[in-house]
């Protein structure tokens, strides 16, 4: 018997939780929101103007001017905007009768000149950061972004393909292992977040074609990962990769939210200060919002008797159960012959099934 019970990783799954999410520009820009302002999911919180391209070139080599002569030959300075074809630097040649010039390839701005080297940003399209989470701005960092507080249902995923979108939840299939196929997708998939146990390759392509807002599956076929990463269609897998069905409580919560508008943030960063889990968030209607601390995300699930857990490793990936009422870890031998500290878990499906599961292969869910 092991007397000390260590920590477990966790996945948040809640029908009412108050969250705070930082919304940040990749480069400095302008923040349009103010503290206390209510903001819609698609409202722009901050905007930046990243260059379409950053050109770097040696003016010395462009027109053969010596480094020392660059300042006096320049017609534009750092910070100056330039039009396409506008002359940036010119050097007289042929006894001053003609001149050799370098023209801006496109409209942009000169961002740096050092010695003979110039960096010029070619203007691109504005980059907007929408609030994504409908709620209230509670903090603003000038030029960078802000923090939005929102209340609603939250489903954290295991893996996400990146990108984010807002859409209406549309559930497919009556069971957590139902696979979404292309033949059930109609025009009304446009703008929807499609929910199913899994997805076929054809359905993934069709959803993209129909401009669905996103996809949430239990498990993703590993062969579809590379394609999912390239599509402009956020995809979230609640369990991971393979064939494990969507966990029952996740499936039930998503089905209860069918038809509601949700924010799908499929950004996934596994570690570090910018670590983020992909998630689906459904904001509460205003009238149901409360300020109770009980609903704050900061109140996290804890390792405790009867706490709800989920398997994070095969053969129990995605299975949900509860810890025993008397929390005791015991050494058990695994099928591979390893001795590991394990706890007796009661699985929800099939109901009442008990199994000693290695502690490291569980996470809290709630």
């Amino acid at each position, binding site marked *: 018997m*092991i007397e*000390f019970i*260590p*920590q477990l*990783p*966790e996945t948040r799954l809640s029908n009412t939780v108050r969250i705070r999410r930082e919304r940040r520009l990749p*480069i*400095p820009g302008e923040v349009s929101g103010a503290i206390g302002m209510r903001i819609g999911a698609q409202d722009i919180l901050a905007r930046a103007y990243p260059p379409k*391209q*950053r*050109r*770097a*070139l*040696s003016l010395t*080599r*462009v*027109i053969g001017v010596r*480094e020392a002569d660059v300042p006096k030959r320049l017609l534009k300075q750092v910070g100056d905007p330039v039009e396409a074809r506008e002359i940036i630097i010119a050097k007289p040649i042929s006894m001053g009768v003609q001149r050799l010039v*370098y023209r801006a390839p496109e409209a942009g701005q000169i*961002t*740096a*000149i*050092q*010695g*003979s*080297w*110039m*960096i010029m940003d070619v203007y691109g399209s504005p980059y907007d950061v929408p609030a994504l989470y409908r709620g209230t701005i509670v903090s603003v960092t000038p030029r960078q972004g802000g923090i939005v507080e929102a209340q609603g249902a939250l489903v954290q995923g*295991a*893996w996400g393909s990146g990108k984010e979108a807002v859409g209406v939840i549309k559930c497919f299939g009556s069971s957590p292992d139902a696979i979404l196929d292309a033949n059930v997708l109609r025009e009304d998939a446009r703008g929807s977040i499609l929910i199913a146990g899994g997805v076929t390759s054809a359905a993934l392509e069709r959803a993209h074609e129909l401009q669905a807002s996103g996809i949430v599956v239990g498990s993703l*076929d*590993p*062969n579809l*990962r*590379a394609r999912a990463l390239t599509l402009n269609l956020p995809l979230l897998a609640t369990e*991971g*990769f*393979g*064939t494990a069905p969507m966990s029952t409580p996740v499936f039930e919560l998503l089905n209860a939210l069918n038809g509601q508008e949700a924010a799908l943030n499929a950004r996934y960063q*596994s*570690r*570090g*200060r910018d*670590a*983020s889990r992909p998630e689906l968030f459904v904001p509460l209607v205003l009238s149901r919002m409360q300020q109770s601390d009980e609903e704050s995300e900061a109140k996290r699930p804890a390792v405790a008797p009867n706490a709800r857990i989920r398997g*994070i*490793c*095969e053969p129990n*990936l995605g299975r949900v159960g509860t810890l025993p009422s008397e929390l005791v870890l015991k050494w058990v031998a*695994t*099928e*591979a*012959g*390893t*001795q*590991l500290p394990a706890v007796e878990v009661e699985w929800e499906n099939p109901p009442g099934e008990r199994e000693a599961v*290695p502690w*490291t*292969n569980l*996470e809290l869910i709630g």
Partner: protein
Amino acid sequence: MADVPTSILVTDVGAVATKVGLIDLVAGEYRLVGATRTMSTCDAPHDDVMMGVRQGIMQLEALTGRRLLDSKNALIKPTRLDGDGVDAFVAVTSAALPLHTVVIGLSRDYSVLSAQRAVDSTFAVVEHTIAVDEESGRWGTTASDGRAGGPSAAVEKLAELKPDLIVMVGGIDGGAVAPLREMANIVAAVGAAMDESQRPLVIFAGNREARGDVAERIGGILQLRMVENVLPKLDQLNPTPLQNEIELVYRQRQVEKITGFDKLAAWTEKGVLTSADAYTRVAEYLARKYQLRVLALDLGAAATTLIYSDGAQNKRAILEETSIGYGLEALLDRVGLEKIMRWLPNSFEADSVHAQLLNQAIHPTATPTRAQDLTALNAAGREILLHSAGIWHDEAKLALGDSELILLSGAPIARGSKPTALLLMLLDSLDTRGIFSVAADSVGLVPAMGAVAAVNPEAAAQALENDCLVTWGTVFVPQVTARAGDAVALTVRVEPQRGGQLEADVKLGSLELIPLGEGEKANVEIRAERGVSFGEAIKGSTFKREVQGGTVGLMIDARGRPLPFADNLERQREKMQQWMWEAGA
């Protein structure tokens, strides 16, 4: 506290697991009296490294019955009269994120290569390199359409990246300065174009004559540090000052930013070492003590570390992009699933292996319970090691093949793979030849012993050899020039010192595992048949030697090197099954 601490609490905080151990005097010898392993808590949602450390200590308290934390969860130090507490606390870590680095130099074959090697031995990832001599025209200012004076793609890429660090190298000391001035202009221009909050730090490790010019151009824009030239003369490499400076930057910018790090450091006497630094000290100690060439490997969940030491010189590579945990997704992208599948018998389904490796990357704390899952991870481990060892392939002086002791630490052991399975993984991927010993880090605290040595070298040495290292045995890999088949490659006679005798014919292309228990010694006589030799170090067709047994025993690998892969995947996987049976994996 006594001058030399006798009871030492040691922790190794990894990206995934935090290991804690207690060393104390037992019957006049230092022993590891207990060790625990808990989840690391550096990242969200916990965001406090101390939570995992305290949990590990509490677990250790439960295990040993000794109080180590007081009622306020502070470390009891020094040891009290009632035996509670410890005299010293030692910590190492590999939990911080790597430094994203760009190397810019004048010549790819000289300065850039030298700097890249120096960076590879630190917790830094080289994201991009720029070399003047590679471009058609200095700085690539010949555009892709062949028109002179176009923009430089290499510099534009640098301008798009957001590195933490730029390493500038080039020129031998006393060489031309002008090219370095231009390089400084580039770095300064790129830096000036970045937002101030995102500007990287620059280390200049080039021609010392150019320092003034470089500082003049860069100093006002970017933080700049100067170190000795990485290549002071064409035939003289000097990577240490650059490595040390990168280590310093890593500690200041990454390690010290781990939430709760200040509290962890405050508990220690000598500060927190990086796990790789500490592990290097262990490899060096073993190399010196036993006069061996040591290859120490750490297959971590977030980084792979290779250290080669002959006692006089150390060589190190740290690869953050491919690892047996978080890095599995990147590994699959880099080498592809098929390369991994070649190490698995035909009974393994590609889709299920693919899914399992991706899921392990998502949940690196998980411990597979099925033998097949551990086997799949070890297949990925082979590709990680092949990739990692490849870093040194072009260095003639550094032949991993002549290692005499291989030391394995890391996640595969913690996950409970069979020693025979892990030994086969090493044999398949490392190309080590001749006769060598293999040992493993049984509790995950071997690297940390390098830090323990700073407060009590005797305790570190004794705990290391008494309790942390497990000898797996001895391996013999002869040179095979004949073709595999039924022909006998070697005749082996083993005479254990406890008595008895065992003879075995080892067929060409096969492996033979001869049992020889832990602590047992045996005299071995090996006779090579036609087409087989013992390598340059051992002349003649017969050689005798005393060997040591271990958890695995004596392994004879007569498959030949490089490994004879079958001509198609299916046949290779059949062969793999055969190798696994032969090795008892």
